[in-house]
């Protein structure tokens, strides 16, 4: 057992955990944040994607103890003051989800992608960079549309900020 503190969506969370606890288990079972999903539990599907110190990772393949002292953002941490994040809003508008199981992971991966490319994305890049996320409803077409729309909003916001 280890006593660890991970800052999740801005709030430090201290818990006693078994060393074999995965970060996704810490998030879902110890903190009760069930927005992060487990699809495969074998590092393939990306449903469990969260941000660890600002980078998209598969939380089913990270030990919670190894994340002691880190900053984590989950799908619950994206909206601000009841207003959906641009990427969440874009998934909603473009019907980027069907059953919704893969959606939290898709959105966390997309937010990371838009940030890394500073919104400079084309369809080819979006499809390539979503390789780590599987949608069993196979709704990729609208997911890609949603990411491109959110990327455009990101560019526009930054262009305004630069003026």
């Amino acid at each position, binding site marked *: 057992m280890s006593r660890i503190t991970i800052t999740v969506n801005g709030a430090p969370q201290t818990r006693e955990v078994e060393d*074999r606890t995965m970060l996704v288990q810490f998030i879902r079972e110890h903190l009760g944040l069930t927005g992060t999903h487990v699809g495969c539990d*074998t590092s393939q599907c990306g449903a469990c994607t969260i941000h660890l110190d600002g980078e998209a*990772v598969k939380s089913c393949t*990270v*030990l919670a103890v*190894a994340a002691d002292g880190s900053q984590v953002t989950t799908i619950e941490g994206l909206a601000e003051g009841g207003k959906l994040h641009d990427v969440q809003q874009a998934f909603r508008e473009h019907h980027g989800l069907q059953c919704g199981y893969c959606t939290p992971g898709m959105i966390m991966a997309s937010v990371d992608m838009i940030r890394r490319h500073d919104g400079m994305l084309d369809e080819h890049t979006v499809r390539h960079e979503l390789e*780590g996320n599987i949608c069993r409803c196979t709704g990729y077409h609208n997911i890609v549309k949603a990411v491109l729309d959110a990327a455009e909003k990101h560019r526009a916001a930054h262009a305004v900020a630069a003026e």
Partner: protein
Amino acid sequence: MYATTYHKPKTLAEAVKLYTNSDEPSYLSGGHTLIPTLKSRLAAPAHLIDVRNIPELFGIEVTADKVIIGSATKHAVVAASGEIKAAIPALSGLAGSIGDVQVRHMGTIGGSTANNDPAADYPAAVLSLDATLHTDRREIPAEDYFQGLYTTALEPGEILVRVEFKTPEIAGYAKFRNPASRYSMAASFVARHRDGHIRVAITGAGNEGVFRWTEAEELLTVNFSAEALEGLTIDPSRMMGDMHAPADYRAHLVAVMTRRAVQNLGGTHIL
């Protein structure tokens, strides 16, 4: 996954001591090979010794003729390094082709090189770029390092500290990926070194893991072009065969990928 005890030593000496004094220990780096293995209960180390707090295992140094990468450096960091891209673009392209974005945010060059998966990418670069593997106790030339599937010259408890690549005159990497797993089914790293010698390393295909394709090296020494390789084939009995690709198909892919690597010198060609 079975219960285990986690350690995060701050120095190399402390890590090695922990390893030596523990029953059934294992080092842990990015965990993107080891954790899936533990979850499927194919291994059950009683002690996990995380190497990602040891300063010597980090850092990138690019000199006039070398690229030196700390073993705990993530694939994404190698792929994003402008210095590495300027020195050996095929190496940065290779790092950027591993798995997917999330995997590259965790997996490390040291973990990949220590693991020596027959389908892993880095071993091809290590062998082709005539690298030297620096450990906590010695230096190992790439030539002596890879010893068959999942087997290396590392002794129990030996820590890979950094990988030192020779900057070639030019190099290219071409790989054909399994569309589902994204690991390569055949990939070829071709380098012409500054002293003129050529090294062709094949990964993903050989039934003994990464290997040098010396017949291709000889032809390329005479004529460094894809045309020189026309008609050259490799014996399928040296290839792995599985439900994704039988041995004769992999043999065919090895020849095609090697020609593509030569046609794409100074970069990568990912299929």
